[in-house]
């Protein structure tokens, strides 16, 4: 299949891009928020294909992990907290914003003229440090997937910063929405919560159990372990193929979210207490930073994994990357769950007529 002309990829790219365009326009035009949430899912699917076509498999993997499952759920959660209606925007403001957006878009289009063409060997991204990383990864780190090597080792500082950013986002959501544990006022005791839930959702809850969502129950029970297993595969296979801590964390959180969708929040809080989630958000960053401190203590530089194994620097790199990725996994999974718990904790206060 390698002797196919390059032309056919252009055709597929054009089809995918035109579908992206249609979805984008529809996203702006549609009024139904449910349809918008679904269209976002489709947009992410198309974007993932587009990234694969650009040979950015790791990016596509992240898009796939975030776009289809978690972002839909979180957007639905956000939908519940917004009002269903909005005042129409005044005409003047609409035109002003249109002009600003159009000007920005035109400027961006103009800027693309200066960009190197796709895959240009002389482009800045491909010639200076990028080229060095490509040359030295095999001898210095010994990993087939250069993306993981760059992300966790060469650019370890940047990834540390990203992990802290994820933690900060989680902290922000927890501060604003809470997480469902005692935050100032005493946590409601278990029977109280149960009676509250039962009271609020008397008809729905009872009816739903009578309705026998047995198919969902069985399939979810089969799927959840598989998803967790796949998350671990993504985590530890990141050295060889696409994947790593960020993606694995999101997939792990998706498994928990599927559990809570089918078996309810009460059950999920029992399985994974919000306290664990709270601890996990900080623990991951601690593991990441701790790896750096250990390398300092062993006489190297911060996040210089060569010193982790005195005899074999390449093995030291492998160890360091593994620890760092575990830190990322813990933080990302916990933050995703914290946001989900935050949204879920709000639902009790809402009544049907508020929506």
């Amino acid at each position, binding site marked *: 299949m390698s002797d196919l002309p390059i032309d056919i990829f252009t055709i597929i790219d054009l089809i995918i891009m035109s579908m992206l365009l249609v979805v984008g326009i529809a996203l702006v035009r549609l009024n139904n928020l449910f349809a918008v949430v679904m269209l976002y899912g489709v947009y992410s699917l198309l974007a993932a294909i587009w990234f694969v076509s650009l040979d950015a498999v790791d990016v596509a993997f992240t898009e796939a992990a975030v776009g289809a499952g978690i972002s839909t759920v979180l957007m639905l959660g956000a939908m519940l907290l917004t009002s269903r209606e909005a005042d129409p925007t005044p005409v003047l403001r609409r035109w002003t914003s249109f002009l600003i957006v159009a000007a920005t878009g035109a400027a961006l289009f103009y800027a693309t003229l200066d960009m190197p063409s796709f895959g240009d060997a002389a482009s800045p991204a491909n010639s200076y440090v990028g080229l060095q990383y490509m040359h030295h990864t095999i001898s210095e780190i010994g990993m087939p997937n250069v993306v993981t090597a760059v992300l966790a080792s060469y650019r370890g500082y940047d990834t540390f910063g990203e992990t802290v950013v994820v933690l900060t986002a989680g902290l922000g959501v927890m501060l604003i929405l809470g997480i469902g544990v005692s935050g100032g006022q005493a946590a409601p005791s278990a029977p109280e919560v149960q009676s509250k839930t039962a009271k609020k959702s008397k008809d729905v809850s009872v009816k739903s159990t009578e*309705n026998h*969502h047995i*198919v*969902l129950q069985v*399939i979810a029970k*089969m*799927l959840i372990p*598989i998803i967790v297993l796949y998350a671990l595969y993504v985590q530890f296979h990141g050295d060889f193929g696409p994947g790593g801590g960020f993606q694995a964390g999101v997939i792990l959180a998706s498994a928990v979210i599927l559990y809570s969708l089918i078996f309810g929040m009460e059950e999920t809080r029992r399985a994974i207490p919000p306290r664990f989630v709270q601890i996990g958000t900080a623990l991951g960053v601690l593991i990441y930073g701790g790896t750096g401190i250990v390398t300092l203590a062993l006489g190297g530089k911060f996040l210089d994994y060569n010193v982790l194994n005195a005899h074999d620097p390449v093995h030291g790199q492998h160890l360091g990357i593994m620890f760092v990725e575990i830190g990322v996994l813990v933080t990302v999974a916990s933050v995703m769950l914290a946001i989900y718990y935050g949204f879920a904790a709000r639902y009790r206060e809402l009544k049907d007529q508020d929506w």
Partner: protein
Amino acid sequence: MIEWAPILEVLRHGTAGAFMLVGALFMLIGSSGVLRLPDFYTRIHAAGITDTLATVLLLAGMMIEAGFTQTSAKLALVGIFLFLTSPTATHAVANAAHKAGLKPRLGTVEPPHPRDVDLNEEKS
């Protein structure tokens, strides 16, 4: 003496291609059904073709094409997962629509909706 290996190779590619083409054909049929059929419950049937038959045929074609490799194993995993999730999701959609009281558009006979039937009366 006939050299069997190249003949089998050609046969393999041919079989794989045939599987994939038929699968894609079913995919198109099902998709046009989803697009053109008149109401939700009929569209589910069309979507069912694409989610089961076409998917299995396409994946089988790709597995034959890939041969006995890791790629084949991964494709088999895709097949198993799709086989688990896709009909379940379709079931969930149909179930939700039915529970919410969405009525089929076709048909002149109108049986009472299950929502309105008294279950106790039916049992006795």
